[in-house]
């Protein structure tokens, strides 16, 4: 599928991440130090780099800058420090996405899938159109029948994830991994409530669904009501 490089100093995590991605069918190579990682990135032109920020020889964000100087490869950063500031700094430094330790397999897969999809759709360009619904991930704007939708950041992310996988049933667990980045159980209720809000803003209800369809016991999917 894709060629992935994992740069992580912790032996256990490096192996587990590499193995998880290899099981997904990716071609994975790994490096324990920043220098080794940089050599791999330059030498093999991968499709994706997973980069831990806490490396022994060089700060991960330094390495990120060096990678950005030579390549536009998508980078998912692994960080132990959550909080808006460090995330913003990381994204500003050129990361495409991030994972906060401890993350689950589902989150790892979700982030890798999302970044690879975005890299691909980046080549395709433009907003996603589903019937009267238009979702523009790069401008973070959405409209319904030409009327702009006023969505909160979480609602927009939900809509984006569902729109990127239109017609596909997405489980609440996946939505949580994609939008909330929290591995805990128990906050699936948040997904429900945000889906309710999204439904309301799309002008529909659970009883009379149009775009958002609940598949009981499985998850939700976004469909074009006309088809």
């Amino acid at each position, binding site marked *: 599928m894709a060629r992935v490089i994992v740069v992580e100093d912790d032996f256990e995590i490096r192996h587990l991440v590499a193995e998880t991605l290899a099981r997904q069918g990716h071609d994975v190579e790994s490096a324990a130090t920043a220098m080794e990682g940089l050599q791999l990135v330059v030498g093999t032109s991968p499709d994706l780099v997973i980069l831990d920020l806490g490396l022994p020889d060089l700060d991960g964000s330094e390495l990120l800058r060096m990678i950005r100087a030579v390549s536009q490869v998508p980078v998912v950063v692994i960080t132990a420090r959550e909080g808006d500031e460090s995330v913003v700094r990381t994204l500003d430094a050129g990361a495409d996405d991030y994972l906060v330790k401890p993350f689950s397999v589902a989150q790892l897969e979700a982030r890798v899938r999302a970044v690879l999809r975005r890299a691909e759709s980046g080549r395709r360009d433009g907003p996603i159109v589903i019937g009267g619904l238009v979702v523009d991930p790069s401008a973070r704007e959405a409209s319904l029948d030409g009327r702009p939708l006023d969505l909160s950041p979480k609602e927009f992310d939900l809509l984006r994830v569902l729109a990127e996988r239109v017609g596909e049933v997405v489980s609440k667990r996946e939505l949580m991994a994609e939008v909330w980045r929290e591995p805990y159980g128990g906050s699936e209720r948040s997904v429900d*409530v945000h889906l309710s809000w999204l439904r309301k803003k799309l002008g529909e209800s659970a009883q009379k669904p149009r775009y958002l369809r609940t598949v009981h016991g499985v998850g939700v999917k976004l469909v074009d009501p006309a088809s």
Partner: protein
Amino acid sequence: MRRRFVLVSLAVTSLVVIAFTVPLALLVRHQAETRARVAAERDIQQVGSLVALALAQVDELDVDSLGDLLGPLPSGVSVILPNGALIGSALPSEVTRLAAAEQRSVADEVEGGWQVALPVVTREGPIVVTAFVTDARLRSGVATAWAFLAVLGIGMIAAAVIVADRLGTSIVRPVTRLADAARRLGAGDLQVRVPLEGPLEIEEVARSFNWLARRLEDLLAAERESVADLSHRLRTPLTALRLRVERLEDSDERDSLLAQLDRLQRQVDLLIEEARRRPDDGPSSCDLASVVRDRIGFWAVAAEDQDRELVVEVTDEPTAVPLPPGDVAAAVDALVGNVFAHTPPGTGFTVRVENTGDGAVLEVVDEGPGFPEGVDPLRRGESGAGSTGLGLDIVARTAARTGGRVDAKNRPEGGAVLRVVFGRG
């Protein structure tokens, strides 16, 4: 301290003022009396010599001719003829009688004043010239002088007290400020510093205090950082553990291990959050009713979506709770989220906020099946339905921070009641 200064100065100046003004007052009175007496004596001397002159010109001594010769007498002076006839206003008394009898000048206190008498010897007997000085006359000017002395004395005391108070304030104010700063430092305000002012010794204390506060701040910041850092470092092995557990084949074993990992992770997160939290981060109290209204606005759409009848009974009275609004909102979300998690769609629920004697109360009542028998819903990990029960655990801890509590029970007519009492802190 300031009062002491004032009292000491009051005592000292009062003593000094009394020691000086009382003798001065007595002296003033004595001088006034002497002045009046000397004036009276001079008057009778003058009148006496006039009488002696007159005697040489008249043959017969009678009141009218003598009166004509003497002319108007000074006030308070009389001439008493040997036959008892009287010229002038002063009345005969023991003093005049004695002067006539003993033929010498006599002076003494009499009723209402002081009298002096001088005999002038004639052939018909002694003529007595007498002067009566009233008490008022004796003390004329004394009252004014005393009033002046009193005003002067009080003025001096007042001035001394004011100066002492100023002096006291200049010493006491830095000390009060220091005490105040120490109290605030004790209450957790590490940014508190005192200005360097006042007497040298106190300035030195202030400098030491500031150094102490700065040191405490640095130490605590370092402590917080190291706790946060340690917790961050825990996240790497936690990640490895989670990834390993997720690959386990036995799904029961895996789920139970994952739940334990979640708990561990939450504790680590909490540790980081608490280490990072500073006392001055955001408001430390909020209005329960407004937080609940806000959160209900969030949940109402989901309730509508699931056909749940939502009854909101929130008081309009102020319901202050000594917690940051975020913590209260998390508790409300946990309670309402539990209704959504543990009751089937279509089940109605009521959210109530009221004031009681114990403090503000939040109550969430649902029409679902209630808690299963023999299960304590407040105990960690017992609330079933895939939840770890941590929601209620957090609510209980939040309530406990205010000195409040959580009660859980089933209603006789069915459904669960969760009642959170927030203390006043």
